[in-house]
C-alpha cells in the first residue's frame, strides 16, 4: 500500500516550508522518509531523494547516519515521550555532540549548557542532571529543540512541534523556532494541521491530503487566493476567517490506506466534484507560480464552463 504517493518537493537554504493537512494526510510520513525513519515494515521508493547534493537513496546507512542528527534534525509532537525516560537531559544532549562533533565530555557539557541557554531554559546547568519526567512538556520541547540544533543543522523538520503543548506555551515555542531559524539561516519544515501556524511562519506552503500533494505555492499567494478546493476549505476553517462566528468544517474524513477513492482523492468531500473528478485522478501540474492537483483550480477563468461540461455532482453526502 502506498501511504504517501507522488510527493515531490524542493527546499532552498534558509527557507521555511509549511506542510499542512488534516491528520492522516501523510505529512509526517513524508518527512520521516527523508530522515530514514519509516517504521517497520514500511519502505521508501523514490526517484530522487537528495540533500545538499547527496543522493540519500544510494548512500550507505553509515553515511546517512552522519547526516541525520547533524545536517538534518527533527523534533516531534510529543516532547515528553520523545525523550528517553532513563537518561538525563545532559546525557541525551551531549550524546549528539560527542557523536557528530567528536567533542570530549567537558566540551560537550559546556556546549550543552550554551544550547539550553539559547532555547531559553532557566538555570541550564542544573537541568543537565534532570530527567525528562521532571520537566514540563514545554521545557522538554525546548530540550528537544536544543538537541536538534546542537550540530547546526542545515534543515530542521518540526513535526507538529506545538500540538501537544499548552496553548500559552505554543506561541513561545513557535517564536523560539522562528528566531533560531532566522539566526542560523536554516531551512525549516513546519509540519502542522494548523493553517494558523503556517500563516505565522512559512514562506512557502505545501498542502497534503491522503498522502498526495494537493497544492504548493508561496504562502502569501496561497492565503490570498487559494487555488485548490481543499486549501480553500482549510482556510475557511480558520477562526479568523469564519463568517458569522461559525466555524466552517470540512464534512467527512481523510480516506484511510485501504479505502481510497478511484478518482481525485478529495472528491468524496469536495463541493465541486464532477463525474470526471470521481473517475480520473488529477495529476500534479504547474499552476499559478506553484503546483496543483485538481481538474478545476479556483483561479481558472474557464472553471465554470469545465465543471458544467463535466457534470457537477458535489460531495458524496450531498449527492
Amino acid at each position, binding site marked *: 500500500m502506498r501511504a504517501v504517493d507522488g510527493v515531490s518537493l524542493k527546499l532552498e537554504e534558509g527557507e521555511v516550508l509549511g506542510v499542512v493537512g488534516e491528520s492522516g494526510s501523510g505529512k509526517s510520513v513524508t518527512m520521516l522518509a527523508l*530522515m*530514514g*525513519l519509516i*517504521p*517497520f515494515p514500511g519502505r521508501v521508493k523514490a526517484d530522487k531523494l537528495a540533500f545538499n547534493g547527496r543522493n540519500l537513496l544510494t548512500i550507505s*546507512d553509515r553515511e546517512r*547516519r*552522519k*547526516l*541525520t*542528527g*547533524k545536517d538534518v*534534525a*527533527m523534533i*516531534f509532537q*510529543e516532547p515528553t*515521550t*520523545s*525523550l*528517553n*525516560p*532513563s*537518561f538525563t537531559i545532559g546525557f541525551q544532549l551531549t*550524546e*549528539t555532540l560527542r*557523536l*557528530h562533533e567528536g567533542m570530549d565530555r567537558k566540551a560537550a557539557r559546556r556546549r550543552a549548557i550554551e544550547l539550553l541557554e539559547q532555547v531559553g531554559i532557566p538555570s541550564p546547568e542544573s537541568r543537565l542532571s534532570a*530527567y525528562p*519526567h*521532571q520537566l514540563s512538556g514545554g521545557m522538554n520541547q525546548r530540550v*528537544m529543540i536544543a*538537541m536538534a540544533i546542537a550540530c547546526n543543522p542545515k534543515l530542521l523538520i518540526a513535526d507538529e512541534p506545538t500540538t501537544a503543548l499548552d496553548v500559552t506555551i505554543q506561541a513561545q515555542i513557535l517564536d523560539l523556532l522562528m528566531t533560531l531559524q532566522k539566526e542560523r539561516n536554516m531551512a525549516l519544515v513546519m509540519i502542522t494541521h494548523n493553517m494558523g501556524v503556517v500563516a505565522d511562519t512559512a514562506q512557502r506552503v505545501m498542502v497534503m491530503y491522503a498522502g498526495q500533494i494537493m497544492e504548493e505555492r508561496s504562502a502569501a499567494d496561497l492565503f490570498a487566493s487559494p487555488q485548490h478546493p481543499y486549501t480553500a476549505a482549510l482556510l475557511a476553517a480558520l477562526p479568523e476567517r469564519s463568517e458569522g462566528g461559525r466555524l466552517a468544517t470540512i464534512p467527512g474524513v481523510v480516506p484511510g490506506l485501504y479505502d481510497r477513492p478511484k478518482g481525485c482523492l478529495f472528491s468524496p468531500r469536495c463541493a465541486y466534484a464532477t463525474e470526471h473528478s470521481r473517475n480520473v485522478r488529477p495529476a500534479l501540474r504547474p499552476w499559478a507560480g506553484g503546483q496543483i492537483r485538481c481538474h478545476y483550480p479556483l483561479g481558472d477563468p474557464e472553471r465554470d464552463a469545465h465543471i458544467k461540461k463535466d457534470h457537477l455532482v458535489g460531495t458524496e453526502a450531498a449527492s
Partner: protein
Amino acid sequence: MIRFILTRLSLLIPTFIGITLVAFFLIRLVPGDPIETMAGERGIDAARHEQLKKEFGLDQPLLVQYGIYIGRVLQGDLGKSIVTRESVLTEFQNLFPATVELGVCAILFALVLGIPAGILAAVRRNSIFDHGVMGLSLTGYSMPIFWWGLILILLFSVQLGWTPVSGRIDVLYYIEPVTGFLLIDSLMSEEEGAFLSALEHLILPTIVLGTVPLAVIARMTRSAMLEVLGEDYIRTAKAKGLSRFRVIALHALRNAMIPVVTVIGLQVGVLFTGAILTETIFSWPGIGKWLIEAIFRRDYPVLQGGLLLVGAIVMSVNLLVDLTYGLINPRIRHTR
C-alpha cells in the same frame, strides 16, 4: 524510600506466620512420625516409641507443640534435627552454599543466553530466529524438570560419557570447605583437576535448573524490547544519527531491562522450587535435597526451619530487587 522499606518489611510478618503454619501442620498430616521412620522395617515397641515421643515433645497436643515451636523461633532457635541431632541452622549453613552455587550458575546461564536471545528475537521480529526462540522457550518453560534432567543424564552422561552423573565433585578429591562454593574452594586448594571436576559436575544441573528461568527471561526480554522499540524516544535516538547498535543496546535495552529485572527477582523463588527437584536428580548436596530427605524422614524441625529460612531468603531477594528497580528506573526513584 525508608517508608517503602518499612511497609515492605511489615508485610513479611503475615508471610512468616503463613509459612510456619503450612510447614508445621502439613508435614504432620503425612502418616507416620520421625521415630517410626527411623526405626524402619525393624519396627519399634510401643513403650519405647512413647518414650522417644516424649523426649522430642511429640506427645503434646498439636497446638501446644506449635506454640512451643513459635516461642523458640522467636528466640532465634530453629531446633535440632531429630535424625542427626545437629542444629538445623548449622546444617542449613553447611548446605546452603551448594544451592547458591548451583542457583547462581543457573541464573547466569539463563541471563547470558536469555537476554541476547530475547533482544535478537525482538529486533528480527517474525524472522525464523524469532519463531525458533519463542518455540524453544515455550518448550523449555513447559518441560517437566524431572524428565528433562533424566533425558540429559541419559544422553550426556550415560550415552556420550561427557559429564558425570551426579554429585558436586569426583570422590577422588577432598576439598576443605572455606567459602563453601566448590568452584572457588577447588581453585584455592591447588589440587590438580579438582576445579575441572567441580565444573563438570555443575554443567548438567545448571542447564536443568536454568531452563525455566531462561525461557521466562528470553520471552520477557523480547516482549519488553518490542514494546520499547515502538516508543517515541527510539525514533528520536535514530533521528540523532546514532548507530543501530547504540540505539538498541543503550536506548532501548536500558528501558526494556526494567520489567526484566522484576522477572529475574521472581525467578529466585522458582529457582528454589526447581532446586529441590534438580538436587534430587543429581544427588546435589544442597538445601533442596536436604528438604526432600527431611520429608521422607519426617524430620519435622528440619523441614520447619528449612522452609522458614528459604522463605526469608526469597523474600529478602525480592525486596532487594524492588530496591534496585528504583535504581534503574528514575521515574520510580523520584516518586517515592
